[in-house]
């Protein structure tokens, strides 16, 4: 194909100069971009203002599309449900019966828990969620894993609040706009979450790997007690997340822990709840660097 762009700028002085200026502007643009990039890697919250305004501006569109997406997905699911309906029905009936029994047992345990706590004089108020919202979208093309939800400062959402779906933890609020906020998902490289195994008190950290899996790192090193299929819940350490919310299932055992799969896959999530910070005092304490604490 012959080149279609006008490469040669003729003898016109004006055309030559404007082309030259174009190159200069492009070079300066790239330099400015590099400087901005360095600044925002150094101070990630520096440019959150324009981002929030931009996400607020487009939130009507994203919310509508998210609603449509959820409905079309449930249609596909209901069509798929017709295949294997019979055998699945029988299996589900058996499962539901067992689950009903277990639920009654859990009721009894909860009752006993309440009684024991009453004896000890412990107060453990259930925190109702601040807001319930649709997961409107995510940064699907970037290495960073952020999601957007349709509630913001006007609904009482603040930075640091945990976000959960009916299945388990989704992430934590990172930036808040007026009607829209950005969630740091668990699979992001920068996300760290204190967890424990459901069956005992083995505590660990769940770190995002950036590829959809979690790296579960044990705090106490030694003989690795984890097994495939272990379920992990939040431990409540750090003060951000309330304890006992499902996080991950171990799928592969490594030297210092395991690789885990998310229980609450964001792709299968439509509605999420924003919870208040579990222990605000502890969360503030955890933010203070140890040097400052010693210096006081």
């Amino acid at each position, binding site marked *: 194909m012959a080149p*279609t762009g*006008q490469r040669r700028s003729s003898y016109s002085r004006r055309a030559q100069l404007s082309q030259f200026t174009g190159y200069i502007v*492009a070079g300066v643009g*790239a330099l400015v971009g590099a400087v901005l990039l360095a600044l*925002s890697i150094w101070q990630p919250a520096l440019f959150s203002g324009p981002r929030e305004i931009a996400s607020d501006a487009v939130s009507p569109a994203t919310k509508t599309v998210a609603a449509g*997406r959820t409905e079309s997905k449930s249609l596909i699911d209901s069509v798929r449900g017709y295949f294997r309906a019979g055998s699945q029905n029988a299996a589900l009936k058996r499962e539901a019966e067992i689950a009903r029994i277990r639920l009654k047992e859990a009721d009894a345990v909860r009752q006993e828990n309440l009684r024991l706590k009453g004896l000890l004089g412990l107060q453990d108020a259930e925190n109702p969620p601040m807001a319930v919202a649709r997961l409107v979208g995510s940064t699907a093309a970037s290495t*960073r894993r952020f999601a957007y939800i349709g509630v913001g400062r006007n609904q009482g959402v603040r930075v640091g609040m945990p976000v959960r779906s009916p299945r388990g933890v989704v992430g934590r609020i990172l930036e808040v706009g007026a009607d829209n906020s950005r969630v740091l998902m668990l*699979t992001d490289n*920068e996300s760290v979450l204190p967890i424990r195994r459901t069956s005992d008190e083995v505590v660990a950290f769940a770190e995002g790997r*950036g590829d959809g899996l979690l790296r579960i790192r044990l705090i106490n090193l030694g003989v690795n007690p984890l097994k495939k299929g272990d379920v992990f819940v939040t431990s409540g350490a750090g003060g951000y997340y309330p304890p006992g919310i499902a996080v991950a299932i171990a799928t592969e055992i490594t030297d210092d822990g395991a690789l885990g799969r998310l229980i609450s896959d964001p792709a299968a999530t439509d509605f999420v709840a924003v919870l208040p910070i579990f222990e605000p005092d502890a969360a503030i304490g955890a933010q203070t660097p140890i040097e400052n604490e010693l210096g006081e």
Partner: protein
Amino acid sequence: MERINPRSRSDTYGSRINRSHSTVLANAMPWISILLASFLPVFFIATALPLLPPTGFLLLIAWRLVRPGLLPVWAGFPLGLFDDLFSGQPFGSAIFLWSAALLAIEAIEMRLPWRTFVQDWFTAGIAVALYCLLGMAFSGAPPSLATLIALGPQIVLSILLFPLAARIVAALDRLRLRRWRTLG
């Protein structure tokens, strides 16, 4: 009576009688389509790993390679700025990478003015692969082997989608120069 050719008074962009190009559309089409494309990934499902190709960058490269001369060299700055608002990358990442990509393509075009589509595809493939890799490096997250492997499907998908992006650009280009009925 012999019928005259019904297409004799029209060209590729429609009838020429009482119709003319829209100046606004002709100038704004590349810009608007790239802005919409960089905003597109937000609509998609909240995936646990990066899967979607960088649609904005893909369309920018396609406009630049399929219709050279429409986008100025400095277009990477304003378009990248908009992309940074929605991409989730640190602010400035797209400004830098898009400007650098346009400058690099300019240099390539200066040395290889005669190209076929396959060569353009090759250029675009290298550009998109580098863009994804550098995007990961600049994402502010500690780089690891796992993230690098997770990038694989995205890069392959982006390279395979370039011909589609080129066809979309070709269709948009026809729409850009379409003749509209003039009033009065």
